[in-house]
């Protein structure tokens, strides 16, 4: 049977999205593969389909717990029961149970730190692993915008489980990053499936606002004018909340804020309301959108610019998944640069925090293996944020032996290098915002691509008629407040013909 037949049989899709078929074919001919596919093209299908055709388990390394959780839930929702996530969400008992019955699972998602544990490796070695998948593979490269020290060991770990056939997936990786991925994963030979980062159906617009207030007002104006649904991205939870409240006060009814500070029930509900069409707009931080499959997002507005073009592409890429014209608008106001630099710097620990940490380790004669036990103390004493601590912990736990003075020095150096990379990324983002040439070509150049055909609705430099994105149906069908709760209850639980 042809691949398409399987696609239809297993997933009920008629056609592959760009790059999927090439990637799957490459994997099925047993070539190590690095696939760079734009966001919204369904990267997970590239290992799910081979999973059904290959004999043995698919091991997927994924850096983000939330992403992993989303993927597992979606696969379960599709009816796949042989799927498990091995990560720190599991209790020790659940972990032990899962490890003894690993052969029951077809798809095993795992965090890099779990993969590094000896007893986990031992269990994995007993399995037949038909495909080793590294998701968000750009995290392995120091040139990537989201470098994760614990990804550095993946090459070594891959050797320990018998060098299985490998698929590295990423949405955004320039040429040097792809070469770095292959090297770090110890691949001698590999195929690359590289698709353009360009999304011709999304127009790229930059607007200017002089003040915060003006920006807020313009955002509301846009949200009211544009055909929804849409996402507005913020780099602060608080401002996301404020903006959502401001929109509600100003006549945008179906809008909610979404960020990591909400409780889990609210997060699930808001996400599902948006997918189900009960919300038109979500005011979100970057926590929103990962793993969300919503086809008809029509606009993405950036209230704050992301810290790198890669994130920008990922976020605007949540629009237009159904292939229909959509728009991405970034509103810039003076001072946004400083905020971006501050945020980039704040993600990394500083020299003083590191020195304090090592002084503490010395005084208390602690080894890196014991870090986890002291997490709370160390975070408090050194004033780490969660992200800063993650970086420190990942780095130290990836070291095989301990030499406090040397390691302190090398960690500080690593951080300085990271900061230089990050600042460079922010500068590129700022250049993009201010560029006076076609925005699309600026982005393509950043990924060593040549612009091909310019779409009709290209960017604010080439000129975009915003009426193209105007709201079609004006009066939105407002959710009616039914006064009769029993009727509401009946409509949830009874089929309509049974409601009298």
């Amino acid at each position: 049977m042809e691949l398409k037949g399987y696609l239809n049989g297993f997933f009920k899709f008629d056609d592959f999205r760009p790059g999927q078929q090439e990637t799957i074919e490459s994997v099925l001919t047993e070539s190590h593969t690095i696939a760079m596919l734009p966001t919204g093209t369904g990267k997970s299908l590239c290992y799910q389909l081979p999973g059904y055709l290959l004999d043995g388990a698919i091991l997927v390394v994924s850096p983000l717990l939330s992403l992993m959780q989303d993927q597992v839930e979606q696969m379960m929702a599709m009816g796949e029961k042989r799927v498990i996530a091995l990560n720190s969400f599991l209790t020790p008992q659940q972990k032990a149970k899962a490890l003894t019955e690993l052969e029951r699972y077809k798809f095993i998602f795992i965090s890099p730190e779990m993969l590094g544990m000896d007893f986990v490796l031992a269990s994995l070695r007993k399995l037949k692993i038909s495909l080793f998948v590294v998701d968000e593979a750009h995290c392995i490269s120091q040139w990537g915008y989201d470098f994760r020290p614990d990804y550095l060991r993946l090459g070594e770990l891959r050797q320990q489980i018998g060098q299985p056939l490998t698929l590295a997936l990423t949405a955004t990786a320039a040429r040097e990053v792809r070469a770095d991925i292959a090297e770090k994963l110890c691949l001698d030979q590999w195929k690359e499936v590289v698709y353009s980062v360009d999304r011709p159906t999304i127009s790229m617009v930059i607007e200017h606002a002089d003040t915060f207030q003006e920006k807020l007002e313009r955002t509301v104006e846009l949200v009211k004018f544009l055909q929804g649904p849409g996402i507005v991205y913020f780099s602060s939870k608080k401002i996301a909340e404020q903006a959502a409240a401001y929109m509600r006060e100003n006549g945008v009814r179906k809008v909610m804020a979404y960020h990591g500070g909400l409780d889990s029930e609210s997060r699930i509900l808001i996400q599902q309301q948006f997918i189900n069409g009960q919300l038109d707009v979500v005011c979100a931080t970057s926590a929103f959108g990962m793993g969300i499959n919503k086809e008809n997002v029509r606009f993405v507005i950036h209230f704050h610019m992301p810290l790198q073009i890669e994130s920008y592409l990922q976020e605007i890429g949540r629009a237009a998944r159904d292939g229909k014209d959509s728009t991405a608008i970034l509103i810039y106001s003076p001072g946004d640069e400083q905020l971006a630099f501050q945020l980039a710097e704040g993600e990394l620990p500083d020299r003083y925090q590191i020195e304090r940490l090592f002084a503490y380790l010395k005084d208390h004669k602690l080894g890196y293996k014991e870090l986890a036990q002291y997490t709370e103390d160390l975070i408090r004493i050194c004033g780490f944020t969660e992200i800063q601590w993650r970086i420190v912990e990942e780095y130290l736990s990836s070291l095989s032996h301990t030499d406090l003075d040397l390691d302190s020095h090398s960690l500080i150096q690593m951080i300085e290098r990271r900061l230089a990379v990050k600042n460079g990324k922010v500068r590129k983002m700022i250049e993009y915002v201010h560029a006076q040439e076609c925005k699309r070509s600026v982005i393509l150049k950043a990924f060593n691509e040549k612009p091909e055909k310019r779409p009709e609705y290209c960017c604010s430099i080439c000129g975009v008629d915003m009426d193209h994105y105007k709201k079609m149906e004006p009066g939105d069908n407002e959710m009616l407040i039914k006064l009769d709760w029993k009727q509401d209850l009946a409509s949830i639980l009874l089929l309509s013909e049974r409601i009298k």
Partner: protein
Amino acid sequence: MGVTYLESVVLYLLKTIKGERTIYSLYHLFQGKRSSQTIQDAHLYQITPYFQVFPSVTRESLERMVKSLRDRNLVKEAAESKVIVTEYGMETLERSLKEKPLPVFMNGWKYHQTTEPFWERLTLLVQVCSNLVHHESSYIPVRNKKDTLFWVKQYISKQGINRYILAERLYMELASALDHENTRPELVVLRLTGYKKIGLTITQAAEMAGLEPSHYHFEFLNTLHAMLDTVLEKASDYPLLSGLVSQGEREVPLTLSTDKTYGLIQKGYSLEEIAAARNLKQSTIEDHVVEIVLSIKGFNIDAYVSPEKQKKILQAARDNSARKLKQIKERVSDATYFEIRLVMAKYGEEQWN
């Protein structure tokens, strides 16, 4: 000037504790701190319904609120961290309660262990049933705890009835159990998720109902607890709903450590022996006994306080409305503090006030 709903609740509680306890005792009460002090005070002042009903409260937010009440002359400082309600505060409270009364069915002490798991299971059960009758098998569950998912799955298969009957029965039970005077079932129904209809978050439901979030929260608990009363009273009429409350959660359990002490008491050990065996202070064991008396009705304290002395202590307590152990002790000089606390714990609610 008016007060918010939450302020009226806090004012009411401050009025009840009469400046005899610090404002932080309310924090512990809202948080549901399982310490003998908090549990005992909750019984003593008859504010057990408020036990653990507002776990999201922080020390700072409570401090801020009390400060604001003080700035508005609704309360005044009585001692360090202790306030009493002013006359103006009393009037304001009365006016506010006339318009927005306190939740009468809410019972934090009785249901603090039950509420959360019950609500988690209920929301998931409703969602699953709704999708079952619509033959939809692909949807994201509103709960992501593995335990809850597994529990509900088992529960449904244990019923052994077809999907239509199951959903209809759930509807009948809910429609009847929620139908309770002086509660607001719509506040609960708004939150439920079903087939192609995602429930509202707390914030959205409050806004939809036109209530401030804390008012919504208390009304919601009030309705839920009234429903639990109905369901557990006539469990045979509500087999599906009562089954969502696990057996172990129906009674107020003891804290783990107290439970151990209780086991040893039942085996006949004296408090000294228990303290020695468990390597704990005698005073800790005494705290445990007070907690046992509060939690287990009918626990006999005669072995620790002679019936004669119990009478004396009760008499002193009745004459003395301040409820300070010290004042009782002054009147019954041969009684220890432990003995007084035991008697107060046992008879506090009915006879004392």
